[in-house]
């Protein structure tokens, strides 16, 4: 039964409205729905996967997405700037670093989003504090001991870690475990470099076990309990992971770089049916910390960007070839960008805002936000914020992972839902008949529009639906109600300047996005 029929039946059969998703707290609904596959599927996007790629050390955003028409960029960076002639075109004002051909191709195909000027208020220029802030999703002056992914994932597995889900909730390719994956009860994920090595490690020891002593609330007692939990999830998951890796395949040849090798493992596991929702990859040590001799078109930074672009391109091609691109999206992040002005050693010191990339078949490609000003800087000569990084996390949680807004708010400690960017075009996920998509924008016409536009939508008849139009900087420029029964919305676009706008349909807690072009 798809959601529409469920809702209609609900209306007819008199099920109280309070039992409908979006009306009740979704967690209690989850509990109600437990074991009912159809309802489970209604409640979320249960198999979507997010691949997070950490660029540790502070990526130099200005040399990644290059502001080719800003003179100050060239005067402030006499030895390391990327010449306009070398940059790969994004639009009239921006160009990719020439090492990023793969990202450019994805951008041109509409599957790569560039979010400009991402940081947070009062940005911290420490690697370690900055990284912690990004991983814990807090304000700059708040210290948390759990990560945003950990807080989200532990809600998917009530009883964790006493009761372990069949598959690990998250996987980090490497041997360390990120603060981002720590939940209130410890890590909600496992880490390994290679599935076979992991399996051998766990399964070659003797089986004789000495029983644990009674739980004790001493420092040592807490550490023992912590280690027993880690050991148990390693024991349980080593086999699951190996089975998936053995069954999985890859269809493209991956670069032999560190990131390429890691993404190849991710592909194998997804292909083999592992249902982990989050894959986290950090690579290149702290090499993005380019204080000296960072190079321009070629050199240290160029090599890192090339490794990123080539590995991600291979991975996404592989996902597409295997049909997994429907449910796989990726995102990059780095603890900060770098200073506008280069230093005296042909490098750049720690800065603030930088672009962030979101990619995947269901990503609304494009450039979000104007480039931060290179003249209106903070007192350290660093760029000002266009977007809070949690605006993007909110988009990921709400649109891609299907978290209810109350949960997203809990995970991010604050409500960023209203600031979420329309990064994901999730309505087309409904092509898969096993996953009915309850809302969609079916047509926008005329498009391009000059004065009036008519938007047809498909929403449940009992829902409260509305349309929001945002410019590419994320500012709301129009809102309108939708008549849920007719699915029709008319809107006046006179007064909007020429350009592309994101149209967001919301109905209950579902959203769908499309684009509108205004011509003058």
């Amino acid at each position, binding site marked *: 039964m798809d959601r529409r029929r469920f809702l209609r039946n609900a209306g007819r059969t008199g099920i109280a409205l309070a039992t409908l998703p979006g009306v009740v707290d979704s967690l209690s609904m989850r509990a109600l729905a437990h074991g009912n596959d159809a309802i489970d599927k209604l409640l979320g996007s249960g198999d979507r996967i997010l691949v997070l790629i950490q660029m540790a050390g502070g990526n130099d955003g200005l040399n990644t997405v290059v502001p080719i028409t800003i003179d100050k960029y060239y005067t402030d960076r006499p030895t390391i700037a990327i010449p306009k002639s070398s940059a790969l075109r994004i639009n009239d004002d921006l160009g990719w670093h020439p090492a990023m051909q793969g990202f450019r191709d994805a951008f041109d195909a509409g599957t790569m989003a560039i979010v400009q000027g991402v940081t947070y208020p009062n940005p911290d220029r420490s690697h370690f504090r900055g990284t912690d802030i990004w991983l814990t999703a807090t304000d700059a002056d*708040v210290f948390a001991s759990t990560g945003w992914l950990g807080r989200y994932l532990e809600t998917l597995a009530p009883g964790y870690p006493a009761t372990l889900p069949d598959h690990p909730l998250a996987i980090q390719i490497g041997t360390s475990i990120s603060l981002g994956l720590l939940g209130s009860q410890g890590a909600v994920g496992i880490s390994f470099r290679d599935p076979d090595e992991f399996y051998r490690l766990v399964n070659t020891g003797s089986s004789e076990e000495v029983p644990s002593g009674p739980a004790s609330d001493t420092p040592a007692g807490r550490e023992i309990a912590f280690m027993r939990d880690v050991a148990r999830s390693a024991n349980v998951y080593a086999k699951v992971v190996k089975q998936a890796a053995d069954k999985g395949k890859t269809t493209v040849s991956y670069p032999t770089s560190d990131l390429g090798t890691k993404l190849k493992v991710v592909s194998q596991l997804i292909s083999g049916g592992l249902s982990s929702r989050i894959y986290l990859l950090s690579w290149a040590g702290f090499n993005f910390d380019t204080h000296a001799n960072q190079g321009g078109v070629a050199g240290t930074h160029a090599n890192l960007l090339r490794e990123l672009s080539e590995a991600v391109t291979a991975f996404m091609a592989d996902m597409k070839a295997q049909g997994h691109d429907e449910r796989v999206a990726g995102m990059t992040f780095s603890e900060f960008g770098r200073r506008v002005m280069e230093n*005296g050693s042909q490098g750049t010191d720690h800065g603030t805002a930088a672009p962030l990339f979101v990619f995947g078949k269901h990503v609304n490609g494009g450039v979000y936000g104007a480039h931060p000003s290179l003249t209106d800087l903070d007192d350290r000569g660093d760029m000002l914020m266009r977007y809070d990084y949690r605006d993007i996390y909110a988009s990921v949680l709400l649109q891609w992972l299907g978290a209810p807004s109350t949960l997203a708010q809990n995970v991010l400690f604050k409500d960023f839902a209203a600031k979420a960017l329309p990064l994901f075009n999730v309505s087309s996920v409904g092509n898969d008949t096993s996953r009915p998509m309850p809302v969609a924008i079916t047509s926008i016409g005329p498009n391009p529009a000059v004065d009036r536009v008519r938007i047809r939508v498909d929403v449940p008849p009992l829902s409260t639906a509305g349309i929001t139009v945002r410019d590419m900087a994320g500012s709301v420029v129009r809102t309108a109600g939708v008549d849920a029964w007719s699915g029709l919305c008319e809107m006046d676009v006179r007064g909007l300047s020429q350009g592309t706008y994101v149209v967001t349909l919301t109905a209950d807690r579902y959203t769908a996005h499309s684009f509108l072009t205004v011509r003058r």
Partner: protein
Amino acid sequence: MISFDEKPRLAVADLTQRQEPLSYDDAMHLVRRATLQPTNALALRYMGQTPAAAVADLLSKTATVPPPSWATTPPQQGQPFSEYARLWPELQTWWYRHAIGTPSLRERMVLFWHNHFTADYITVYVAQYLYKQSQLFRQYAVGSFRELATKVVGDPAMLIYLNGNQSIKGNPNENFGREWFELFTLGIGNYSERDIVEASRAFTGWRVAGLDGVYNAQLADRDTKTILGQTGSWDYQDVVRITLEQQACPRFLARKLFRTFVEQHPSDDSINALATVIRSADYDMQSVLTTLLTSNAFYETAVRGAIIKAPADLVVGLAAQYGMLEVHPTAMLAVMTQLGQEIFYPPSVEGWKGWHSWITSSTFPLRQRFAENFILGKTASGASLTDGSGQPVAPNPIAFAKSIANADDPRKIVEATCKVMLAVPTTQEQRAVLLEILLSGIPDYEWDIDTPGAAVRVRGLLQAIVRMPEYQLM
């Protein structure tokens, strides 16, 4: 500031000196924390002594290892990559020989300073510089932090690692200046962005020449600057002086020392108490360490076993406990690397984070495999352990059992092995299971340490103990 991290802490640390002589358990606790070699023999040496006498003895010990042949020879101009890279493992081996040499507090502190004033061979490249830096740490291991910090500013490995050699008057590189405050002296929140800029100016003037860091006052920015509220034409020595005058500096060091030697979550009161000691000792580490390691706080029951072993503690400690001093360092260093602690290659300038970061779904099983295979004389992957000449070597379980207990009594073997290998007390039930493993089917009255079947049984006991999570604590 708001904190969501409200882990229970021990109350304020009592830093008054303990006068009571050390019991065996106290002495084991001291040598677990103060050295890399927590052996039965060392504990027996200090049992019955006062903490002050034992710590004085530990402070006097030094491992002496001849320098690598290339230590003081500058690299040739234009030599190929392989010529640099060839020396890195030799440097690591040289460190390992110190770690497995004479047990000493000094070597524990050399590792502490390496994890504090970090540098790595990929960035520094020239092994000679890292050799020199390690020797600096050894020289000042238990000496004056003030002098050490001053020397570190112009240390060639540090100049390269944090770009001090590329920081020029008029356009300073901030890398060193930022980490100086954040990671080396004050900790975040105790300085401003402006202090970083001004200190970075004061740190200019350094270059690397040959194997030395050379200061040229002509190249240094000697103009007026304001650092942490003090204005003057400061140079790098002034930055050290002004920084060490801050209240935050002894507190920052105190927290790290607590985490290394006592417990992971010291209370603010404990930190303040040790910071006061550091200040009144004017950063003399010998005096500070003596106070800490002889204090009542250090010997409290609540902190026993409260620290998760670093890979160095696990690997060197296990080798030392079984007298396996001759195992070729390469195998031991390789395990440390796999467990996340490659010596001379910390993951970032913050160093190894320690605590829970040591234990993951990958590293915990590897710790178990390493230790139980080591008991058999094998590496984690199953190859034989060998000595420097390639001959297989393996621990002798019978000799071990006889060295720690009356080996004719299987219960005594279990009890003594637990005491030497585990930092937390075992339960009756755990000892009963361990006894069963030791006897493995024979009745206890038939136990005979001198029969051929005894070795395999003692090995079984040792393997069962090193698999326990408790074995990862110290």
